[in-house]
């Protein structure tokens, strides 16, 4: 998503320190995502009052409380709908949406698909741990087949959703995947996602050290391969991105899968916003206009 750079005030890491410290379990992947987001905002010099961080419900959705920006901690699965309203009412704001795989791909699946096809200008970070954590360990939409959880004690028999393929198919204009343990790489992806004009989807492997004993840091480390290391890979090639999105097990790509910049953003496509953000618009409609509304009825 796009943003205006602050020219004057120097934005520092401390500006983004939350009122309280995160209450995530020690070792949770979400810590890495939080520090990468704070670092990216400092690197981009975006003042905290111009940022709105919006989440749903779940461990990772507690995120807005741990960063000092304007924050909205909304309902389970509804963060993208709320965020769309915020962006359309004030498109000068930098909108970040944070949440988990259950929140985004399960209960919020409908909004996920439609927000992408609308190309709402925001960055959506999913802290994907392939498990429901706050409800103490049930199968999530990204849990692998065979994984044993409290809700599927004999092993998951349902195929997981592929968030990257789904995002590509739904028309997201920026699609990337990060790994919480790869801080520098993740920070770079967040910065690119914020700068991108349109819907930026960033799926982040963020291991749950308490409930997911299958997809651990140790499991991911030897498997993740950065797309940026492959000089031949072209993120403008949608078919190539789709192909890469299908890789799993032996080699799991992380990095920017896809970006296109030729699709108008939702707020950019609507002339009503040409005069500036609605949050600052005059409430009164000119009398010569309202007169025509009544004349139509006579």
């Amino acid at each position, binding site marked *: 998503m796009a943003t205006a750079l602050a020219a004057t005030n120097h934005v520092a890491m401390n500006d983004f320190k939350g009122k309280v410290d995160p209450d995530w379990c020690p070792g949770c992947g979400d810590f890495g995502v939080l520090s990468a987001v704070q670092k990216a905002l400092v690197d981009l010099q975006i003042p905290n009052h111009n940022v709105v961080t919006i989440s749903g419900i779940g461990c990772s959705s507690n995120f807005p409380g741990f960063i000092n920006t304007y924050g909205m901690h909304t309902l389970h699965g509804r963060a993208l*709908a709320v965020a769309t309203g915020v962006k359309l009412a004030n498109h000068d704001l930098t909108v970040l949406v944070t949440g988990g795989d259950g929140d985004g791909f399960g209960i919020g699946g*409908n909004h996920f698909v439609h927000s992408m096809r609308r190309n709402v200008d925001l960055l959506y970070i999913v802290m994907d741990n392939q498990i429901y954590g706050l409800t103490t360990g049930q199968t999530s939409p990204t849990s692998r087949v065979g994984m044993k959880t409290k809700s599927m004690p004999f092993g998951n028999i349902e195929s997981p959703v592929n968030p990257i393929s789904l995002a590509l198919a739904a028309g997201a204009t920026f699609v990337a995947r990060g790994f919480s343990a790869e801080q520098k790489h993740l920070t770079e992806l967040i910065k690119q996602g914020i700068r991108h004009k349109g819907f930026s989807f960033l799926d982040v492997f963020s291991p749950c050290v308490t409930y997911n004993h299958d997809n651990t840091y140790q499991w991911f480390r030897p498997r993740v391969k950065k797309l940026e290391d492959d000089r031949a890979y072209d993120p403008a090639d949608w078919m190539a991105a789709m192909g890469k999105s299908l890789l799993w097990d032996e080699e799991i790509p992380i990095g920017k899968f896809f970006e296109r910049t030729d699709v108008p953003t939702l707020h950019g496509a609507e002339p009503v916003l040409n005069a500036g953000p609605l949050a600052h618009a005059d409430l009164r409609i000119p009398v010569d206009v309202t007169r025509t*509304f009544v004349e139509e009825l006579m």
Partner: protein
Amino acid sequence: MKQTFAVGIGGAAGQGVATPGDIFAKIFSRRGLHLNAYNAYQSIIRGGHTFLTIRTGPEKVTNMGDRVDLLIPLNQDAMDRHLGLLTDGAACIYNSETIKPGVEVEGVQLCPLPVAKLADITRNKVAQNTLAVGAALSMMGIGFQALEEVLGEQFKKKGDAVVSENVDIARAGYDYATANFKPFAWPLPMTGNRYAVLSGNVAMAMGGAAAGVKFYCAYPMSPSTGVLHWMAAHARKAGIMVRQVEDEIGVVNMAIGAAHAGVRSMCATSGGGFALMTEGLGLSAMMETPVVVIDCQRAGPSTGVPTKTEQGDLWQMLGAAFGDYPRALAAPLDIGDCFKIIPEVFNIVDRFQCPGIVLCDLLLSEGRLSVDPKDLDFGPVVDRGELITAASSEPNGDGVYKRYKITESGISPRAIPGVEGYTHTAASDEHDEDGVLISDEFTNPTKRRAMMEKRMRKVAGIEAVVPPPVLWGPRDADVTLIGWGSTMGVIEEACEILIEQGISANQLQIRWLVPLHGEAILDILKEARHTIIVENNYSGQFARYLRSETSFVPDGHIRKYDGEPFMPHHIVEAVKEQMSGKTKLSVPAHEILV
């Protein structure tokens, strides 16, 4: 009795019932006559049976009335359904080549039109409709010029040839009727007034525009879709962002997001969509972000009867979302009120930072009424409450901005995102004054109680700014009829008829459901001799609500849940039945099969 004249046009969907209806509405309102129109239809795009009633007169016409003076059946089915219900002095204009009258009714003038002889029906498929409109106007004593003018506007886009073809057909009908049919005993008068004719949905949409709504979103659902249509068509002129969303869950959350960012934000739906919005209403209350939701009731439960009216959503509105929270709930009394009520509700929700619900129904949403253009005020009072939209010289006041600061009124100043020095998190979880969650790591009963009481203190504040209801009609009446929302007009007319028949009647009509002002209602009702609650639902939802709030039990009930609105005689006959002691619960039958 007020002098009125009603035209009923019946036919299949797709046969062109709407166009003659629009033409009559324009001609009546331009003569300075009031009108009220109600269209009974089904959830079908082609076929079925549609019956449009337009009732007009020099004084305000508040409901569809009891009688049809002129029937225009466009097919045999419409003739068969309605001819037998006509009474003395009425007339029926029909295409004598395709429709047979069946039984003749005494005192009813049959007006057969030899359509193929009067117009070239191979060229013009709706010639019978245009001929009938022409014939009707002649019988009503209206000069042809008025029709010529409206037809010119109606077909302007299709070119001069189409205009003159339709004018010629209409004139043939007009002249034929002048030569062959007896005019109505009461020629329609003319006054110097001019009225706007609009539906409740258009009125609520325009009321939103007048209130300064800058964000509107919806998912299409009958009978609320008309609000979306007006908003979408006028969005760019009015500077309103209008979006169609994937579902009503998305709708309410998107509206809340926009409201949180600082704009006045509104959405509309019907009962099913509202059910999906309930969790969102709780979010609005907990984050203290004001939003206005319109619910246009239709006959439920479930998908129910999508094209029929009911007042069956009251308890859904009262119980929407879990937990206790302040809300405003208002039911517009007529289509003019649909316009006025929106800015009023916005001022309350902005001031008290809570959700507001406008409880409309199909009868008002899709009905049409003549309104004095002066009553469509696009400059109403706007009170946005304690809203911080710009950084002050002392950004944090006493040091730290507390979004949910505990105050005597329960209202805490609300900063919108983008303002320097006021960053905070608004949460659906219970939170402290500064927005920090008290739901997860360390829950705190003292803080939780303080926050509940802070929010709930707003209930008393809302009650203080909403006026209590008042009794209309003679003070010392034989019977007091109690209604809410859209039944205002029909109950009012029923009272007039009862008074003419020697039973003095008065009316208590409830507009504000939350706050209800139970004490004021009790003060009025304890003086009443015989009380009857009139409502368009099965279980007496308002009666049960009134009882739960005040312990008041009325003497009787009149309920209707067949999908059609009350007609005045339904209420009059039920009142007489109850006054004679026959029953305490009357369920009038709807005689017209639509």
